[in-house]
């Protein structure tokens, strides 16, 4: 029983780490611009796909991964520049549709570039299972966990310590005030899109060796990332990370102890319950209307 539980936890944390990274991307963009970017999942797919293609071309592993992140960041910047910035005054629902349109567009692009094939990526460091008691994990599981932990710390550092990070935070509190004190709001928005795209790509690269990638892999991951961000509380990036971890664990515990067929339903029931009792997510604050 304990062995099983440990195995569930390992799986849950790995899956959750990926959700956390995607959720973090959602939260960063939401924080900077109040937009929920439903194309976040596509960043994951593009990151993984580009990395695989570059590796196949014979480019050294490390370079390929870095280049894949760079490509995805460019896609993220382009999305901000050509879609989001053009629709500055759009309402919440309109921006939702725009980002959904963007996600369909990017998926369509991937379909043309990569076709419908399933792609596999060689793991970072072999496939020899590591034993933890009777439970096992792959070296890649450790990469996923470590990669997520490192990027979460970096993001924290970026927002708490660097001038640019603080400027983005300022935009999130009050865009007008931020621009009055001389912060270039446009540039901050671009940076946050680039950052989220990069995080998405990183998530894709980390999990690609565990799972496989197709042009439509982004849909599910995007959905789970969004759920993670909401579960944690939209305005709080670290909440999104916690939400992602929780979601991953929920799925694995649900599948392990209740029913694997209904595991996603179980996770969503828990999310609904959380929202019913904490309408602002676990670590967020409920917004109140100002009179």
């Amino acid at each position, binding site marked *: 029983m304990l062995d099983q539980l440990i195995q569930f936890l390992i799986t849950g944390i790995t899956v959750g780490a990926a959700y956390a990274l995607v959720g973090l991307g959602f939260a960063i963009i*939401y924080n900077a611009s109040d937009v*929920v970017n439903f194309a976040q999942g596509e960043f994951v797919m593009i990151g993984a796909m580009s990395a695989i293609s570059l590796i196949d071309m014979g480019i050294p592993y490390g370079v390929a991964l870095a280049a894949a992140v760079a490509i995805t960041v460019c896609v993220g910047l382009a999305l901000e520049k050509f*879609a989001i910035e*053009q*629709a500055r*005054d*759009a*309402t*919440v*629902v*309109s921006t*939702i*549709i*725009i980002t*959904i*349109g*963007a*996600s*369909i*567009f*990017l*998926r*369509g*692009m991937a*379909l*043309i570039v990569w076709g419908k094939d399933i792609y596999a990526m060689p793991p970072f460091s072999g496939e020899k299972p590591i034993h933890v008691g009777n439970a096992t994990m792959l070296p890649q599981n450790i990469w996923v966990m470590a990669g997520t932990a490192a990027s979460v710390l970096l993001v924290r550092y970026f927002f708490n310590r660097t001038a640019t990070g603080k400027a983005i935070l300022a935009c999130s509190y009050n865009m007008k005030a931020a621009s009055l004190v001389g912060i270039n709001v446009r540039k901050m928005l671009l940076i946050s899109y680039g950052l989220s795209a990069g995080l998405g790509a990183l998530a894709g690269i980390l999990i690609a060796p565990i799972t496989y990638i197709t042009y439509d892999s982004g849909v599910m991951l995007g*959905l789970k990332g*969004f*759920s993670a961000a*909401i579960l944690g509380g*939209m305005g709080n990036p670290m909440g999104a990370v916690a939400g992602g971890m929780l979601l991953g664990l929920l799925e694995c515990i649900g599948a392990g102890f209740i029913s694997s*067929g*209904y595991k*996603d*339903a179980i996770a*969503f*029931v828990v*999310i*609904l319950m959380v*929202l*019913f009792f904490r*309408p*602002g*997510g676990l670590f967020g604050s409920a*917004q109140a*209307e100002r*009179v």
Partner: protein
Amino acid sequence: MRLAGFYLFAALVALLPVVFPDNYYVTVVGVTAFFNIMLAVGLNLLMGYAGQISLGHAAFFGIGAYVSAVTTVRYGWNPWVAMAAGLVLVWLIANLIARPILRLKGHYLAMATLGFGIIIHIVLVQADAFTGGPDGLSGIPGLVLFGWHVDSDLRWYVVAGAVMLLYVWLSLNIIDSREGRALRAVHGSEVAASTLGIDISGTKVRVFVLSALMASLTGSLFAHQQAFVSPDSFSFFFSIELVTMVVLGGLASTFGAVFGAVILTFLPEFLVVFEDFQMLIYGAILMLIMIFLPRGLFVTMADRIGPMFAGYFRQGIRET
């Protein structure tokens, strides 16, 4: 003159099959368009007028369809009784979840409705002993109206068209009434609405239940028309498509919802020739419309074409 636009629209709907009696786009895609219009008009009451986003509307559509399908196929119920049973079940579910869900705002509301839709979809897939699982359920009997069998595409055009027009009429009526103004007031400013004596959560719940019931009835008709249901017709992708229809036409305009539904029904039909490029083009069109016409195609058009024409259709169009 209040309903001039409606009469024009009804005339067009009635004329099309007379001019093109056996046209695929009229009698086949047309019926699909009618179902989509019914769903979009109902969702528009909730989203466009009351301002409550729902990414799970397909769930109510699905519950209605599956109650009709399962009870008629597995238990041999009369389709009309099945339809009523679907409405009762949806009424219960909608009332149960409406209050806690509608307390949420913005993206949290989007998440909750999305989650609800996904849960229902998973149940449809997993409860295969009952629902037939992902392969779906076939052999759903057709409808009989006073001895008149609704069994051809053209007859379905008539029935679905009539119900669709009824929905549009109901929607136009509601918007232009005490309750409809209360809805729009809740959207405009919750605090002002409440201090004028409007019960915010009650109003939201009522319109949520109404639009759920409209979706359920549409689902029952859909099941009998298709004679087959499978879960992929009720996935969250379809919920999102419904939202897109409403927003694309223009929020808070009944005819906007009609227009959006028609466009999104026909667009894929014309895009099939692009094969692999279909998805790319579809995504691009969606983005372009929302970027350049954020108020929606129909609402913008109605404003630009001229006050005369617009007057007929502009009923209840949002003023901002």
